[in-house]
């Protein structure tokens, strides 16, 4: 259903995606797994055929760079953040249905099924995060595309909404849809993915089933460290100079580190008189 061969995306000298290849059969689900900046969203953009790249991607036998429009007809896309159209929910469904050549009624029925039947006349901007995500899924399913692409689908949801969305996605997969999603949450990957592609700095460093990837030697964890704002940049520099893969992530630093070395960044920061106000572990591969 989806075939990627030697996909590379460059921005100047930087390779955001570096020689990635994989294939996915109809009805399978695949997680693009990696930290921020690993190239997950860029790879989704390549799959949608909205950016130029080297290599080939075919969707249902159609080249996305040769006939992007036709390929996108087979793809429903759920962005991480639902864009702020100055429209009501019903108008948004109507707009997307007309662009996809789908029946508006189908969208309204799906909205009802998702428990959002009473929001048709509400502005999209007034919906909560969970409601927006359901709307995004409703829109993506217009025209019954066989493939769903989801960018960090649960990133902005509370625990209950996350669980609900994963259940819905599992239902859709059981109905035969092929699902590709990006994530940096292992629990989500384990619940939803048949296959995992692990990306690091644009490169595919591991691929296989969830269990195969989880058993890969040198298991790594994500360590999120909170610091005073003025110490974030010096801390990233310090950690980088000691060989740690550290990047700023909002008001904290995300460090990807071997599972057996997770205390080392904390020790290093303390020894350099950079106080850590809080930290948490994010399960990674």
């Amino acid at each position, binding site marked *: 259903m989806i075939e990627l061969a030697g996909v590379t995306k460059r921005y100047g000298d930087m390779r955001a995606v570096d020689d990635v290849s994989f294939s996915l059969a109809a009805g399978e689900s695949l997680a693009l797994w990696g930290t921020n900046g690993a190239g997950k969203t860029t790879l989704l953009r390549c799959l*949608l055929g909205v950016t130029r790249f080297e290599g080939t991607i075919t969707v249902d036998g159609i080249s996305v760079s040769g006939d992007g429009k036709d390929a*996108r007809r087979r793809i429903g*896309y759920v*962005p991480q*953040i639902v864009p702020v159209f100055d429209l009501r929910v019903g108008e948004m469904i109507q707009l997307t249905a007309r*662009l*996809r050549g789908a029946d508006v009624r189908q969208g309204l029925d799906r909205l009802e099924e998702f428990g959002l039947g009473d929001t048709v006349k509400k502005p999209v901007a007034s919906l909560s995060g969970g409601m927006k995500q359901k709307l995004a899924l409703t829109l993506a399913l217009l025209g019954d595309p066989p493939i769903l692409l989801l960018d960090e689908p649960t990133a902005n949801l509370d625990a209950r909404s996350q669980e609900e969305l994963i259940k819905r996605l599992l239902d859709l997969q059981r109905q035969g849809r092929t699902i590709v999603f990006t994530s940096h949450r292992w629990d989500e990957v384990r619940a939803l993915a048949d296959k995992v592609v692990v990306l690091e700095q644009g490169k595919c460093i591991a691929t296989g089933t969830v269990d195969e990837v989880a058993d890969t030697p040198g298991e790594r964890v994500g360590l999120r460290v909170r610091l005073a704002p003025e110490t974030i940049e010096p801390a990233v520099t310090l950690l980088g100079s000691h060989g740690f893969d550290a990047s700023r992530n909002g008001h904290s630093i995300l460090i990807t580190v071997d599972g057996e070395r997770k205390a080392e960044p904390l020790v290093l920061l303390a020894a350099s008189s950079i106080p850590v106000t809080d930290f948490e572990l994010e399960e990674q591969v």
Partner: protein
Amino acid sequence: MSRSVLITLAQREISDALRNRWFIAYAGAFVVLSVALALLIDSSAGYSGVSGFGRTSAGLINLVLFLAPLMGLTLGAQALTSERERGTLSYLLAQPVSLFEIFLAKFIGLAIAIGAAIVTGFALATLTISYLSGGKGMDIFLQLTGLTVLLAVVSLSVGYLISSVAHRTSTALGVAVVAWLALVMIGDLGLMGTAIMFKLSPSTLLTVTILNPLESYRIASINLLKDSLELLGPAGLVATDRFGSATGWVLTGILALWTIVPLAIAYLAMSRKEQR
């Protein structure tokens, strides 16, 4: 290219324009000032004895020279950058729609919205003058309406070009206002001063003049009012001398080029930016 996609996106653009405070303010100002001008000119017609349409047209040209480019430039400048900033462009591109369809449909939608505002202003001025002074000179008035819509589309095209290369809406708007000021300032007076200072030959003066679409519009529209040739200015007189009866067509062609060339460059710039 899908006609239904073009219609859907153009309709969305028109309804977005009708919700845009800038558009409402421009359209409202244009309509009110057009009618006010018609009334004002009619009230002074007794002193001059010149027909209402001719005098109103001459008055409207000056109004149009300020308002139509400002409307087209600023609305065009917001068109693509605001879509990018709100994330709506990425969403549309993820649908079975091509970048060219989005680009063209937005332009058509905005051109229809701006054209409708101008036609409404002119139509109400026409009704006012017809009611007060009869319908003499109406054909010229209709031609002037068409020419004015073309000027607005030219401005929209230049605004679109600004929008395609700017990263932020605020930057695009700033550049659009500077472009508007430049086009208005490098008008007849500026050119006259330049011609005297640099001793420009008539052909050079004409070339420099028609490089400014506002001047092309001004000369073409005044040329319609045959009884007001003294208003043409030096470049206008050179143009009528050079092109004779084809002056209107030549200048309209130049305005058409001013629409097509910036639009083509804007598409190339947008395509490079979005697909990089």
